[in-house]
């Protein structure tokens, strides 16, 4: 039963971490945009180059 003395606090600390993460995620808007994320991994892994974006903007 002495293992409980370790395991109980560990479970509580983990729980605390999980709750803190959740609170952070909610406050920092992680749940705001649930749509773009679903197609994100389908796209290729290139970041839009700032320079080409600039050019295009000047162009139109």
């Amino acid at each position, binding site marked *: *039963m002495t293992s*409980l003395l370790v395991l*109980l606090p560990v*479970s*509580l600390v983990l*729980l605390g971490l*999980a*709750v803190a993460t*959740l*609170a952070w995620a*909610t*406050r920092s*808007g992680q*749940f*705001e*945009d*649930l*749509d*773009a994320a*679903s*197609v*994100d991994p*389908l*796209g*290729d892994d*290139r*970041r*839009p*180059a*700032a320079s*080409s*974006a*600039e*050019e*295009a*903007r000047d*162009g*139109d």
Partner: protein
Amino acid sequence: MNAMLKADAGAAKSMPLVETEEHRRHGGSHSPAPRDAACYHCGQPLPADATPIDGRQVCCAGCAAAAAWIEAAGLDDYYRLRTDAGNRIEALDADLSAWDRPELQAGHVRDADDGTREATVALEGLRCAACAWLVDRALSAQPGVRAVSVNAVTGRLHLRWDPARTRLSELVGRLAALGYRAHLAQGAAREAGRRRARNAALLRLGFAALVAMQAMMFSEALYFDAGGDMSVATRDVFRWLAFALTTPVVFFSGWPLLAGMARELRLRAPGMDTLAGGAILVAYVASLVETLRGGPEVWYDAAAMFVLFLTVARLLEDFARQRAGAQLDLLAKAQPVLACRERDGVREWVPSAALAPDDIVVVPAETAVPADAVLLDEPARLEEALLTGESTPVAKQVGDPVLAGSVCRMQALRLRVTAAGADTRLSELADRVAAAQAQRPPLAQLADRVARHFAIVLLVVAAVAAIAWSFVEPARALPIALAILVAACPCALSLATPAVLSSVTSALVRGGVLVLGPQALARLARVDTVVFDKTGTLTTARASLAGVRCTGAITPERALAVAAGLERDSGHPLAAAFAGLESIPARDVRCVPGQGVEGTVDGATWRLGHARFAGLADDDTALWLAREGVPMARLAIRHEPRPGAVALVEALGHAGLSVMVLSGDNEDAVSATCLELGIANWRARQGPADKLAAVRDRQAAGYTVLAVGDGSTDAPLLAGADVSLALAGGLPLAHRAADLLLLGDDIRRIPGMLALARAARRTIHQNLAWACAYNLAAVGAAAVGALPPVWAAAGMVASSLLVTGNALRLGRARP
């Protein structure tokens, strides 16, 4: 909004009732249009003179620029990811500098602590997740943009930017160039409130999920100790730990439930929240008492899990409702926030709401009209897509009424306001939709009443059971009362109807059908007769030539050539019938409204129009051509059936509905149309009173009638039928009588709409039957002690989820 509606219509057109081969091949979603026939960017049909730009088939310079930018920015994955065609890009040169005006930003833009500014903007034209992705990437690439988040469901864009490096107008311009029109979200405070409420609900749910699970774990340890081997000290440690975890779950996550219970008790109307809150508090307090006095059993887990399950059920219901509501918010967006008022020769920008009747306003081109008004100075062509679903501009003469929310693309307007703010037709329409949404339909009200009585009865049953068991086996009295309270919670019962209705309403809105009447869906499910008022509902306004008969003095070819010459530049509605024919040029062409056209051809005066105009007695079945007052030719005109009208009638027949046409037109026109469409039951030359009488006849014979009209002469008919559907192109009056409003005028959605209403009724019945059966069985099991509280809670939620899931199934359908 215009683009949105137009595109909606387009999307619906590319989605025929009968799944085509191509549709299936593309999985019904990807690559919305074949490349050779439609614009690469927006998917709309290419104009005849379109030339490829940069190797892409595009319909206009705007779409070309958008496609080029998207590729240059490395975002062309958008075309692969999207499930719906893009928006047609219109007019890139619109002046967006108004977005930087302080008076417009006031109340919408907030200053953040670190010198950045943030705003929430309502975006029009977000179709699918790929749109959200594109907007996110496109704006993130702009210098000075700190944070972007897009919600494709609610159509909201949240932006944070550095005012030193970019301006709001620039970002809005970027969006406009991609085909997304931005609007200031009305009521920024309400918007922020909604975001906060949503975040709070999510946090409550997440907290309950994490902590209740842990509380369950600790309680589980106690269950394993069935033999009582655990030392009292260890047992109490677990109990106090469970207590420590359950307390915040009950009072933080469960707060809305407890508040609801307090409200119900204050109003002396105990209902669902009382039952749920009561069960939670009984479990919690009884466990605390048992913990303090070292009793044999505690029920912390039941309290915590019950809170979790109820929170899940509530959130699901909220999401379903929000989804339906977000689509309707679009209506409220179209009225601009600022208007330019002209007073004593001085122009100033004032909030649109501050306008009063008889104010003079100046509306720049490309800007929505801020209030209902009459046109001054010069004629103009206005788009009223938002109000009527009709995307082609409507010509207005000086003195004609102009509706708030309509847009003039070509020129600036000067208007005299007739109604502003909440009195405009746009606001009225938005209000009606909102009211219809807020109104609990009778069926749901009934379920609520049943649930309330149910709650009171169950509280009594629980008390009686507790007392009875306290004589038989006192230790089990409390858990059994608890189990009854939990099992009795009529969550599923009260969710059954609203979940289905909001799910179906949102499916209908997506398909372009607004539900306005509270009874509409229930009655729609029972409809067995569809009455089309006037052939114009089944036919387009576009005329075509059906035949020519000449008197001896002229050849048919020449008659047609003269007619084509007269019509060519007349702007007459029938001109389309003669387009593309060989024509003889006519001079001095004059259009006589409601009569016909007159002009000089080869030195003689010709008239084309109604028989009387051409110098004949009555014949309202055809156009007549006359030379110097002598009739020369009879030109039979017919109106083309709307695309899909044949399929519509066929689909209605398959669904076992009888179809009837009541038309004010002449016999020839009606019989020709009905023959082509396969409608046997028609009546011609029907006045409004005749139409109403015919519908009453049908109703008296026991039929439930759906009336479909465009609303010009049929307001009594629409009001008299059991359910009415107005094509949104109709007149304002019709909307007041209609229960349903079809945006975009695509009548092919009617069978789908009926099928959806029937499915809704079926689902409501299933849900109610299930919820009642489950609750009775569970309460019975709990009363005899066969159902422990935790399992009762799990069953309650499973039942609610089943009911909600059954309802959400309908949300995927598309009329």
